[in-house]
């Protein structure tokens, strides 16, 4: 049963990862290290830097996020990520989709409780 649950959480985590990255950037532009640390520290997401950097690169290639380098006095140059307009649009669609999904799941849960 634990294996089944673990597999399920892996699938959910993977599915939600893009949404989480886009959501994290929705509020403001963030530089890579800060963004990665925020997401890595997110409880339950269980994601590593090794997974996040390729994801960020893929989102940039797809035009959902933009990236720019800026020199930093505290260490190596920082790479700042921000949502593109297309990314904002996709995020809206994702959230809309998630809301619908959650609503459906809640309805099912309520029905199950009544039953």
């Amino acid at each position, binding site marked *: 049963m634990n294996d089944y649950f673990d597999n399920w959480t892996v*699938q959910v985590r*993977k*599915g939600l*990862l*893009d949404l989480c990255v886009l959501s994290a950037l929705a509020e403001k532009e963030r530089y*890579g*290290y800060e963004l*990665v640390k925020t997401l890595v520290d997110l409880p339950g997401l269980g994601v*590593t*830097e*090794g*997974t996040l*950097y*390729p*994801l*960020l*690169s*893929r989102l*940039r*290639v*797809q*035009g*959902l996020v933009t990236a720019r380098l800026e020199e930093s006095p*505290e*260490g*190596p*140059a920082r*790479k700042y990520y921000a949502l593109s*307009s*297309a*990314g904002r*649009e*996709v995020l809206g*669609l994702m959230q*809309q*989709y998630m809301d619908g999904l959650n609503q459906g799941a809640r309805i099912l849960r309520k029905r199950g409780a009544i039953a």
Partner: protein
Amino acid sequence: MRTWTAAAREELEQYFDRVRTALEASGADVAEVIDDLRRHIEQEAAISQLEVVTEQDVRRLLARIGAPEPPASEASGRHEGRSSALATADPRSRGPLANAMAIGFGIVLPTIALLIEWMTGMCAGAFFAPLPTLWHVALVAMVPLTNGLLWRALRQGGEAGRGWVGWASGVAVGVELYYALLFLPLMLPGLLGIVFYGWGLLPLSPVLSMIVTLLLIRRLRVQRAAIGPGAVRGVWPGFAVGLAGLVFLETPEALTRYGLTLATDDDPRTIRRGIQLLRDWGDRDVLLRDCYGRTRAAENMDLVGWVVTGGRATRPEKAREIYYRVTGQPFNSVPAPKVRTGRARWAGLDDWTWDFDQAGEEVGGRIKGLTLHSSRLDAVVEPDAAIAYCEWTMEFKNASARQREARAQILLPPGGVVSRLTLWVNGEEREAAFAGRGEVREAYEKIVRQRRDPVLVTTAGPDRVLVQCFPVPPDGGIMKVRLGITAPLEMKSAETGLMRWPHAIERNFTIHETFRHQLWVEGPRPLTSSGGALQTEQPREGWHAIRGQAQETDLWLARNFVQVSREGAVREVWARDTRGATPDVVRRTLRAAAVRPPARMVLVIDGSQGMDQMPALAEALAELPSTVEASVMIAGDEPVSVGAVSTDTRDRLARWRVRGGQDNVPALVEAWDVAVQRPDSLVVWICAPVPVALESAEGLRQRYERRPNGPRLMAVQTRVGPNRLLEALDGVAAVQLLPRTGDLAADLGALFRSWTDTGSRWEWAQEREIDVSAAPREGAEASSHLVRLWAKDEIRRLAASRMTEAAVEMAGRYQLVTPVSGAVVLETAQQYRDSGLEPVPPSTVPSIPEPSTWALLALGSGFLLFMRRRGP
């Protein structure tokens, strides 16, 4: 400064090698991720305050980072994820209103706007031409097409047209932006139209479809981003291509408008630059449109024109002048401008356009719907008096919805004069009043303003008259007029005279290619057709006829001339002058006169485009007698003196490159100045039609008027067409035309050959004597046309002697149209009274005599001849 050990570096590189394959499979940019990871590790090392990074440090950090995991959608989830994204990006999922707006404004509205403008020319007719070429149509057609393809691509999941849809939509946006700007001045009226009347959407079409295209591109971009890598590529380059394409297509018009601005400047050098620019790059269609005038609304709404010219409009008169300077052709000698999409004539000539030249003294542009409906020329010849009287009856038809004025300049047979003018009013013939030129024109303009029926004939240069009649009724209405012309026959020998036909040299009505003039000549002696084009017949003993048909373009050619046989022994004719103060007789005597060649000839050659017969001219110059001192001058942008006539001069002339329409006045003035230095000199001006007076001819007129015995001017026009310069020299005795046969080399050759020592020509001399006795006179009695021809010359003499009042009075008495007089037919007696004019009594007008009259005349002259030969 942090230091990395070699082992640490090696450890890191090994890690990158291990994860490289997984990274490539993830769709990420491998180099970027490696850079990011390297930067991350550097950051971690910095935070951990490592001075030296060892292999162990790297292993520890990499253990925390972990290996990249495949993305969630890479495996089985990819298809599901794609379906979900498609569902939300599919335009149909956006709601019915949004869909209807996208289809309506993106596809349907631009299609309707394109079709309406293309088929009706609505905007072109009222404001500016948004679709002047097929290329414009093709580019605009891309807008609804691209929007449709974008729509389809979205429905099919964004994969369709992956390579080109971005380009196509970029081009569409470029086209939409251009037209949105072009229609900017019409948007507010369009919006107001929608608010108040519920229509006016068409001017908004570009901006609305642009919004739709941009939204569709955005949705496609989102859709593609959601399902995998690859944005909508090529939008910006496509946009640049679309916009650049339209700018390129508009360049000729913009250059033309810029050229027009320069050509209307005050500085001669700027004007020359403008003309040169227009000759090299100008769009003749645009020039032609301006020749027909634009309404104020059209000028104000033409944004391109505004940008290029700064709002400086070109008046039609100025545009016509520039058109001539640029092309060398009168603007009304070519078909009216067309929008080159094959959708019929330029709307600027449509029914709702004002005829700027109405009641004016210029023929002006062709009027749509106005045609010559019928034309018959009936002539009788008096062979022994060598006189022809020709009645030209014309019917004009107006298919347009407005009343129109028919105008034409007519070239009379050499030495001819208009002696009768008739207008049909309600089926009845009304004769003209002959009076001073100013009086008849004033009466005509007054009646035109009242929109009643007048017809006016005035002279327009040597052997030229301007005929104008108004109104040709709308919707297929017909107006019928008749012009009576008395003209001497051109004597080829004592036994042969030549009759030429009058013909239109400029007109504002159309004569269709299939149209034929009906020709008919009768007379008491044999008649033959010069070129065999007409059919001869003898209806009865002692009476001959020749008849046939001629195309408009052939009427002036030698093959339609009529050769009239005459009794060579008859050298003297006379006619009673019943219109003089005393009962007098006008006598006409035929004699062979030696041709006196000019001592000096200055040949002025028009350097205009229409002078396409330079080789023929050079050939004819070879026949110039060596006794004549001749020099050649070319009227180019500046007068060019080519020098004395020689083989080199002829070669240079044959190779001369004519350009545009040139001002001939400076060269003619210079030629007069050269010619006047010797007595008996002649200026021969060989010219194409001169449809526009580029400069005042007063200086030239002054020279010829002030030295009546000075140089003569002989004009040789190479083609049928108007000549404003000759119009300006109307009434100047020293100006004459070389009668043409259609072959320039032959006509000039004949002129030059006649200047040889043995050259002679047959000519008539006319004189008036008091009829002191009623006894029979020598020679044959002729008709009153003989008196009219004498009167015409006498009026000319009086006018040249500045006895204008006497000349006008005489022209009225003899009922002739001369440089000082005109003829006008008004509709009612009241109109004549109001204008202080009196129509001629119908009994006094000339007519085609009945055959019986001619039989009597022929019998009489035969008897006289018989008696003369018998001797005393």
